């Protein structure tokens, strides 16, 4: 620690002594490091793949055509299905990431349907109360489907060829009572490899979805991870922007004072009176929502508080003797602001940082929750919360999302408080 000046060392020690803040910082850093791993941890491309003796690394290579892997399809294979296939025909092996789903991937959970002792149809969750069982073609489309009510075929059964329904039958009390067209001679007895689809949101534990899926069929773990990555990315853009504007303008206002200060202050007062949420809703109706635009809007409304604080600090500092002295020595405005004013505002900068981050996480989630945020295909915690509101029964959406959001907020706040403690001069003198 010898390369740091003693005051900094002291502050760092004080920060470490706040256990909550210190551990929060370590946890957040660790999580961010994990988030940087991205598709190595959460994704639907294998880390390593060996087919017919050729080894490849799809997670780094990106898109690989099925044809290059000796498959019959042009597009990218579904690697999870490919893994099973390779296991069966012994042509190779592959290693998937720990969470083998991409945040943007839509998963259909289709467990096998079976009959219980009384002949009622059931899936891993129990007797099917109202749903469908079906057989699949080799391309994954449905061939024949039956409506099941209370475990028995009731109502519609349909036969598809190339996706078009060509015949249907009506079941009543387990028997076919009507055929359309009347001349239809399909065998309507459910047989073959029958599956049922668990509607999204699907509860945890099926098909390798540790925390289930959301309304659109996305894996919740992958969604939470993707949402965290987006928050990190936003923070990396948002914080430098807000601080660049807030610091420079605040410092300039405090330092120069006079009419410049006057005009800027009035402009800021006007600007800060625009209700943030209304402005967002208004802009969202004019512009196509994207992360860049959202961050731009958030920056536009977030720099004011910081600038005000900086202005006050700079005002105070610019009256100090050492500023006057360096001015007398002929230093320019830029040099004085850069060398004297800003370094002395470091306390403010550092201590407000976590709270700006907190505000960002909150605002982004709130906007997504209200539906004015990112497109619904992008992973976001706010969107998950919104889904939880519409699906109260789906605790696996609400619980983990709330845990992540509250956890992150608490950690950020603890860091903020620890920093304030560390930089508090009155405490330092004790």
């Amino acid at each position, binding site marked *: 620690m010898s390369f740091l000046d003693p005051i900094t060392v002291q502050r760092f020690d004080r920060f470490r002594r706040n256990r909550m803040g210190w551990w929060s910082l370590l946890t957040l850093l660790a999580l961010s490091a994990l988030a940087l791993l991205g598709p190595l941890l959460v994704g639907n491309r294998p880390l390593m793949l060996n087919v017919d003796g050729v080894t490849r690394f799809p997670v780094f290579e990106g898109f690989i055509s099925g044809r290059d892997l000796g498959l019959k399809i042009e597009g990218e294979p579904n690697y999870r299905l490919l893994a099973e296939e390779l296991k069966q025909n012994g042509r190779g092996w592959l290693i998937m990431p720990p969470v083998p789903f991409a945040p943007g991937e839509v998963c259909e959970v289709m467990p096998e349907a079976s009959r219980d002792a009384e002949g009622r149809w059931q899936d891993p969750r129990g007797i099917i109360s109202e749903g469908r069982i079906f057989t699949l073609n080799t391309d994954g489309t449905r061939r024949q489907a039956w409506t099941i009510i209370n475990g028995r075929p009731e*109502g519609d059964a349909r036969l598809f060829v190339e*996706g078009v329904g060509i015949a249907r039958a009506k079941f009543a009390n387990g028997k076919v009572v009507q055929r359309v067209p009347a001349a239809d001679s399909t065998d309507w007895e459910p047989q073959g490899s029958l599956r049922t689809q668990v*509607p999204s949101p699907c509860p945890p534990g099926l098909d390798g979805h540790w925390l289930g899926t959301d309304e*659109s069929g996305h894996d919740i773990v992958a969604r939470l991870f993707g949402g965290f990555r987006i928050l990190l990315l936003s923070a990396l853009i948002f914080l430098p922007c807000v601080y660049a504007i807030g610091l420079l303008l605040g410092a300039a206002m405090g330092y120069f004072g006079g009419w410049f200060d006057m005009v800027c202050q009035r402009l800021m007062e006007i600007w800060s009176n625009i209700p943030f949420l209304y402005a967002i809703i208004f802009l969202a*109706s004019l512009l196509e929502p994207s992360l860049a635009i959202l961050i731009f809007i958030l920056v536009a409304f977030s720099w004011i508080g910081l600038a005000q604080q900086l202005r006050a600090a700079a005002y105070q500092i610019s009256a100090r003797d050492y500023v006057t002295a360096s001015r007398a020595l002929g230093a320019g405005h830029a040099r004085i602001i850069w060398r004297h004013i800003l370094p002395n505002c470091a306390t403010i900068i550092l201590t407000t940082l976590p709270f700006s981050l907190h505000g960002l996480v909150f605002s982004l989630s709130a906007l997504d929750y209200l539906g004015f945020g990112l497109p619904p295909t992008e992973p976001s915690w706010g969107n998950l919360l919104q889904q939880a509101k*519409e699906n109260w029964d789906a605790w696996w959406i609400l619980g983990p999302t709330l845990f992540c959001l509250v956890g992150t907020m608490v950690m950020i706040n603890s860091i903020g408080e620890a920093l304030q403690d560390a930089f508090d001069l009155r405490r330092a003198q004790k």
Partner: protein
Amino acid sequence: MRTLLAFLFVLTNTSAQTYEDPKAAAYYAEHKEFFHFGKLTDLPKDLVWQDGSEQKEFADPRAVRGGTLRQFTGSTPPTLRRVGPNANNGFRGELYDNNDFSLLSSHPNTEETIPALATSWAMSADGMTAYFRLDPNAKFTDGQPITADDYFYTFYFNRSPWAKADWYADFYTREWGSITKYDAYTIAIKAPRKRPYQLERLGQLIPLPRNFFKDFGPNYEKLYNDRFQPTTGAYFVGPTGLQREKSVTLTRVQDWWGDHRKFYRHRYNPDIIEYGVIREMDSAYASMLAGEIDLMPIMMPRYWYGTNEKKAYQNGYLTKAQFFNDIPRPPYGLYLNTQKPLLSDLDVRVGLQHATDFQRVIDGFYRGDYERLNQFSEGLGKFTEPSIRPRRYSPELARAAFAKAGFTRVGNDGILMNAAGERLSFRLTFDTSDRRKYLATLVESARRCGVEYRPETLERTTMYRKVMEKNHDIVFWAWSVSSRLPALWESHHTDNAVEKLADGRKVPKRQTNNITGVDDPELSKLIDRFREATEEDEMIKLSHAMERRIHDLADFIPGFKVPGYRIAHWDWVKFPVGFDVRAAEDPGQYGLFWLDPKQREVDLKDFRDGKVRGAPKTVIEDRWRTE
């Protein structure tokens, strides 16, 4: 109730005299070519009068009048005016469109013409003029008799600049030839030109209550903003009926004219219909489950299937009902803007048809309850070409079509590119409704075919503006369809696709319904011929040819169709045998159900006490199912 009776009493008293608008009279005199006045003796002698009496009644004679139907609305209407600014709001259907009658109506099961405000009718030999005898007992909801003058007034009112209703002004000018009054209850209406289904079109005319419009003038918009315009239907909004942001109450007319008429009796049975404001659909659903709302559409899978676990259903108080109707299907699907780069290439469009997996959406999101839409014009009966099928999802066929368009290289992200390095990437626009939840499915399926859909969800009015400005690439959209006659001029004719600027340049024509920008001479020619055709055989042949051509142009990716409606209702709401009529889009449209208020009290008490009434009930009525 006392105030209500007093109000009705006052109305009945004033109905003795009817009002003559001098400005309207002057207008009629000024437009002698349109407004004719004749005598009964002027009526042609050889007319063959018809009255539709051979058609069967469709209402249930067991229906009992009375009770209050509790419904909900997202918000109260900004105005009670029928036309002018803000009048085209979400509540207009309940106030006017479902609650008003024209001269003739169509039998909801057979589609044959039945009498409405006219009791009998006749066509002239040349097929250009229709004669109507009006029901002398028919009255507006304010008690004023409906006479020939009220039909004249419709033209005066709607054409007036004071009404601020451009669409209606145009409609009431171009789509009608002339109107003749023979006496207070006999009129004739002439068509503007030869066209098919003349009688049905001329029979669409609705009367306007000229007595109510005493103060009609330049300040109509403000003066009439909160006044309910009397209709010919069974319900009206009383002076206290609109409570802003709280509720709208419709009151039944006592002794309505329809109660004595075949086809209209035993209908519109509740005495009061109360729409409380509930902003969120989920809250409304919860209210319905608590018995505070009597019946509610539960189309969304999460409501339909979710009801299975609810007490009210399990204990046998609440019935789930699915009714299959047979109506023209709104073309839900993706509209490709063919005037955008890449999308102007037919092969690209065909490729997109194969790359968009609506079947997966139907199987997954809609749990197999909806059906794939075959084509743009579906459910038009004999006017629908039955052999057209949507192109199925297939990465192989999609890639083959894209290869034909020159997209053969694959980028590192798996998206196809052509020799010039252009990527197959399109903006896909959705509204912010529940449908946005399956955007991810479409995006992901397309990616497997080498296409990138860049999703965007816009608030509804923003989306509407963007599409009307023709700024979209691909948009999820649907038109409402009200008639079985294909109306393709609006959506597919060259007239609505391009606009020639003064300097000779062609640009997309804005603010038209041709949102795919299709500009195809062959199709336009077919549409023109269809619009002039009068023989049914020829019309069928032409409409099949048009539909085939649209399919070949591949500008519309058929999505899904909803084969009927699904509701949940408490058992004190009674439905007729057969549940509803073939043409019904929702139970309120033909008003065939009735209430049992006494049962409501008993049921609600028992339900709240936790008693079990019986086994869960699900009604599926598929008499009118089409496929």
